[in-house]
Structure formats: C-alpha cells, structure tokens
C-alpha cells in the first residue's frame, strides 16, 4: 500500500498516526481515571460511569448555551468554566448516589454491579425526559476547532492536543492527591484495611463519600472534554463504558500506574492495527490480545502487593 507515496508523505502520515495514537491514549486515560479510583480503590463496579460522564457533557452544553445567550463576549473561554461546573455537578451527584445507594453495598461488591446498572438506566431516561431524546450539538469556541499546521503536510487536531494537556494535568493532580496528600493516605488506608483504618480514627464513611465523589467528578470532566470529539445524547455514555472497564481491569484494578500503562498499550496497539487493517479487525485483535494477557496474568498488568 505504500508503493506510490514519497518518503515525505509517508513520514508525515506516520507522525500524524503517532499523534492519533497519543490522542487515543489520552482519551482512554481520561475516561478510565475516574473509574480507576472508584473501581480500583473502592472496589465498586460502577456501571453508571458513562452516565456521570454524560452529565458533564450536558453541563457543558448548558454552559455554552448560557454564554451564547448572556455573555457572548466571553464565549471563547466558557469551556474552562464548563469543565469546573461539570466536575462539581458530577461529583455532587456521585456523593448523593454514594450516600443513598452505594454505602449500603460495600459488603456486597457484586451487587453494586446490578444497582449501578439500574442507576445508569434511570439516569439515561432522566436525561431523555429533561433534554430530549435527540443528541444535542455543543458549540465550541473558534480557537478549539481545526488543526495546527506543524509543517505543510503534518496537521495536528487542536482538540486532540487540548485533551492530551488536560489528561496530563488531571493525572498529575490525581496522583498527587492520592499519593502525597493526607487525604490520599486515608483513602489508601481505608482501601487496604477498612476496620483498622477506622480503629486509628479515620472517618471511613466520609473518606468513601469523597472518594466516590472525586471519581464521578473526574468522569464529569472527561464527559465535558469529549463533547469536542464525540456525541452528547442520553445514551452516549454507553459508548465509553466497555472501553473504560477494559482499561481499568487490564491495568490491574488498584493501580493508577497500571491504568496508564494499560491505556497506553491498548491505544497504541489499536491505533497501529487500525492503520494496517480495517477498524473492526483491529478491535477484534486488540481484544484478543487483552484476553490472552489476562489469562496469563489475571490480576492485570500491575497489581498491588498485599498480604492476603
């Protein structure tokens, strides 16, 4: 397939393809981070993760409408405010859900699967009743559209670069919060031994609630960012849920580093294969590879060493 092309052409395509892989990597990390906290740290199988993302997307849509109607002069910067609002909205809903539903199920982790799946159906129908069944189009400020021309033939999508930057920022913040802050130490203590953590005076209920809220909030930010590259409708969240779990499970549930490594290997495999064969085939081979590796290493790529 490369016979007819000049070296220059091929070079720039490979550079752009490299970027495509990196963008896919960022998208995977961004959507999996929230779940890595909820599923990885707390052991809650949150099937409604996609719906928390879409809440963020709807918040972004509402913010953009608000700015267009009342503050058109500030429209070019609305996206940053929208992401903050998306974080707060999804985080708040997450804490509410934790209080009403999840906290009763910590001793029965498999039941969270069913409960959150029901929750996801309820949220979908709620979005449909409130926002309508049709997808909504989120208007983006002009500077976020189009691509950066690096050279004559190399073009990089601006929104992709934006997602990459955002992913790095959020990953660094999450890593800092979990591994350096006092609160992060409490979270890890609760995860490793809930009873002992309680015995030494950690308010485990509060830690649980904020952890769940943080995970959902990050899902909200991801949803907000994905309005740039995907659709916003009542069931759009379903498009992400499988890939999200794939990344988290493959990485090793309780490891942030594992999530990143797994997102990187899955995205690079997929985007390279997609280039050399058809999209569906690439997905099949990627999934086969993941299944194969999980058979050899059921605990995922990186596993936390704990005494059983």
């Amino acid at each position, binding site marked *: 397939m490369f016979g007819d092309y000049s070296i220059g052409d091929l070079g720039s395509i490979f550079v752009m393809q490299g970027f495509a892989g990196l963008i896919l990597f960022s998208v995977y990390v961004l959507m999996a981070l929230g779940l890595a906290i909820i599923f990885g740290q707390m052991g809650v199988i949150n099937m409604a993760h996609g719906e928390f993302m879409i809440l963020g997307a709807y918040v972004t849509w509402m913010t953009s409408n608000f700015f267009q109607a009342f503050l058109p002069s500030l429209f070019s910067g609305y996206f940053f405010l929208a992401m903050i609002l998306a974080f707060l909205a999804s985080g708040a809903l997450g804490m509410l859900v934790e209080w009403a539903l999840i906290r009763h199920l910590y001793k029965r982790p498999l039941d969270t699967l069913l409960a959150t799946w029901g929750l996801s159906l309820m949220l979908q129908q709620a979005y449909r009743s409130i926002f309508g069944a049709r997808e909504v189009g989120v208007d983006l400020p002009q500077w976020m559209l189009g691509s950066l021309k690096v050279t004559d033939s190399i073009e990089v999508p*601006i929104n992709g670069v934006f997602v990459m930057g955002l992913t790095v920022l959020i990953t660094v913040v999450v890593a800092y919060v979990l591994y350096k802050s006092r609160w992060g130490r409490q979270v890890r203590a609760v995860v490793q031994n809930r009873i002992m953590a309680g015995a030494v005076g950690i308010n485990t209920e509060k830690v649980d609630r904020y952890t769940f809220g943080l995970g959902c909030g990050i899902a909200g930010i991801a949803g907000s960012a994905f309005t740039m590259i995907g659709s916003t409708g*009542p069931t759009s969240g379903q498009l992400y849920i499988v890939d999200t779990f794939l990344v988290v499970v493959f990485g090793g549930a309780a490891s942030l580093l594992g999530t990143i490594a797994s997102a990187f290997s899955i995205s690079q495999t997929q985007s390279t294969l997609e280039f050399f064969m*058809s999209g569906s085939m690439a997905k099949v081979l990627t999934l086969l590879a993941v299944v194969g590796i999980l058979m050899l290493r059921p605990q995922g790529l990186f596993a936390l060493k704990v005494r059983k």
Partner: protein
Amino acid sequence: MSDEPNKGLQSPLRRKLLMGAAALPLISILPRPSFGAGPATATVNTTGLAVTDTEVTVGILHSATGTMAISETGSIQAEKLAIEQINAAGGVLGRKIKFIQEDGASDWPTFAEKAKKLLVNDKVAAIMGCWTSASRKAVLPVVEQYNGMLYYPTFYEGLEQSKNVIYTGQEATQQILAGLNWIAKEKGAKSFFFIGSDYIWPRTSNKIARKHVENVLKGKVVGEEYYALGSTQFNSVINKIKLTKPDVIFTDVVGGSNVAFYKQLKAAGVDLSKQALLTISVTEDEIDGIGGENIAGAYACMKYFQSLDNANNKAFVPAFKKLWGEKTVIGDVTQAGYLGPWLWKLTCEKAGSFDVDKIAAASPGVEFKEAPEGYVRIHENHHLWSKTRVGRAKLDGQFELIFETSDLVEPDPFPKGYQ
C-alpha cells in the same frame, strides 16, 4: 398501562399535545368532518379488524425510549401529524383514525412482541412502524403470520419484499446509484473511500456502491472500512483517508459515531469544501447533533430535504413545526414516516375496504400527489417510485438542493449484478 395511546411521550411533546387539546374548542367552530357516513362496516371489514361505524384503529410502533429514540421520535411525530390531518379531512372511508402507540424500546424482541399485541389483541388495521432493519426483520414474521400491514419508513438495504409491508423509504440502489453517478460526472470522481458502521445496512449499501463504482463508473475503491456501532475514535481512518487522497469519501456511519466522525474530520483539517464527501446516512436530524459547522459542504444523497421548494413541502413543514415546535427539523425518514398513513388511506379508498388482502393487492399504482417530496407511487414490489436528490449541507444545518433526478427512480430491491 402500555395500552395508553400516548405512553412514552417525552414531556415537551405531551405539553404540545395538551396545548393542542386546549385549542380544540377553537377547532369546533370550524366545520367538523362528520364520521359514520361511510360504507357499512360489514362490507369494508370482513376479517374482524378493529373497525366500527365511526372509527378505525391503527398502531404506531417505534422506539420512544432507548438508544433509537433519537431517530424514531421524528417518525412518530410525522405519523401523528398525518393521522391528525387525515382525520381533519374526513378520515378514511368515513371513519376517524384512532391510533394505539406501542414502544419498541430499541429492543428487537420487544418490537415483535408489541407487533403481535397490536395485531392479535388490538386488531389494528395497519401498523406504522419500525426503523432499524433489525426491528423490521423481527416484526416481519409476525405481520406475515397474522396477516397485518406494515408501513416502514426508513431507507434500507433492500433484498426484501413482502405482501404485508409497504416500504416508504428508498431501498439502497434507489438511494445510492444516482448520487454516485452525479458525483462522478460533476466532480470527475474516480477514486472512492468507503467508511461505514459495521452492520447490515452499510455493508450492503457499500457492496452495491462498490459494484457500481468498479463496473459502471470504471473508478476505483481505494479503501473500505467499518467501525463497530458506537465507535468514537476515527483518527486512524482519517489518516488513511489523507494518505490515499480519494476524490470522494463515501460514508454510511450512523448514530453517535456519526457525530464523532465529522467532529474529528473537521479537527484533522479536512476541509469539506475542497474534499468531496457523499453521505447516505446524515439527514437534518443527525446534523442537529453533529453541528452545522462540522459538516457544512458535505453532500447527502437521499429523496427528501426539509428545504425542498415545492408547494406540498411548503404546506408540510409549517404544519409539522406548528404541531411539534419551531426548532424541530425534518429529515428524510421523518418525511417517509408521514407518507405511511396517507398511502394507507389512499389504498383503503382505492380498495373500498380495510381488509389486508385487498389492501395488499390494491397498493401497486396508488399515487400520493401531495407528498412533501413531490409525488410518489407504489410499485408492484411494494416499494415507492421516488426521485433521488443530492443536497449540500449548510452551516445552519439545512441542505441546499444541488441535483435531482429528472424522473422517478424505479425501486429495485433485488438488483441484478449488484449482489
């Protein structure tokens, strides 16, 4: 509870209906059609359908909930508008149409079950319904077994024909071939890149398109790619498109993937005013989610655009917006949904009966001159003769008509040389 006719309506619609009900006293001032003056029930209904001296019952069977609600809402709206207009004009054979709405809930077994319920329990005279090919395939054995009549609105892949179904959308050759001919002639296009969602309709459509490009247009297909339904990442295929530099990108991507595809195409710097793109899956409904700025300049090939400039359409669009809101848009399938009740009414009048066998036999040759798309006629194979049109997407989400076939295109669900 599922027997309530208006079940599953989202609240804005319900509000509209209530507003419509509030306007009823006004309507009563107008001369009202009187029902019950038609031919005797025993003569027009020999098979025990739900027909009384004053009423006839039909079913509406679409997804008002679940993932397909995005698409099927427009069809529901169009069918209700048509029924309302038919009733205002005196009904069918002197009888008012009453409808029972069932929700297929985007789940194919549910569609089959609800179709059976409509035919066996409610004895409806006809069903307006289904949207995806999967739902139609689920319902088909039911309408054939219980001898019902289904009016199916979506453009689809063809390879099907049934006594019990009238296909009011286009089958694949009808939709695709004229568009390919036009773009080959107009743009001198020789190389094509196909990209679609991975299920039966895009695969069959692209198969037909490939045969046509290779055998008739003597062009070349430089790439054919399928992505799973719901895929949101298209950067790799966009790079492939950039590498192969096709004259035309030919797409039949559907659903949420559509939105992702056009957003990423635009972000990757593909300028649709320079790169020709022909789609058979994007109507005004889809552009709502994609955003006009992401798709402006693309060509779409189908039989109806909301912007069509003819007297029928100029009456239809305001009537639709009056009932369902100023902001609603009308896509190809919505218009085809509107044809269903009207064609059924005209066929009943031609047959002088509600009996399904008589309607199936009387359908060929029935013409609807007030169709928003202009004029349609039912073919012997129960599909419609219709024109094929090419429109160019504009920033405001509407299409500008660029080309239309001079004659009606014959439906050919089993095309020879294309399989």
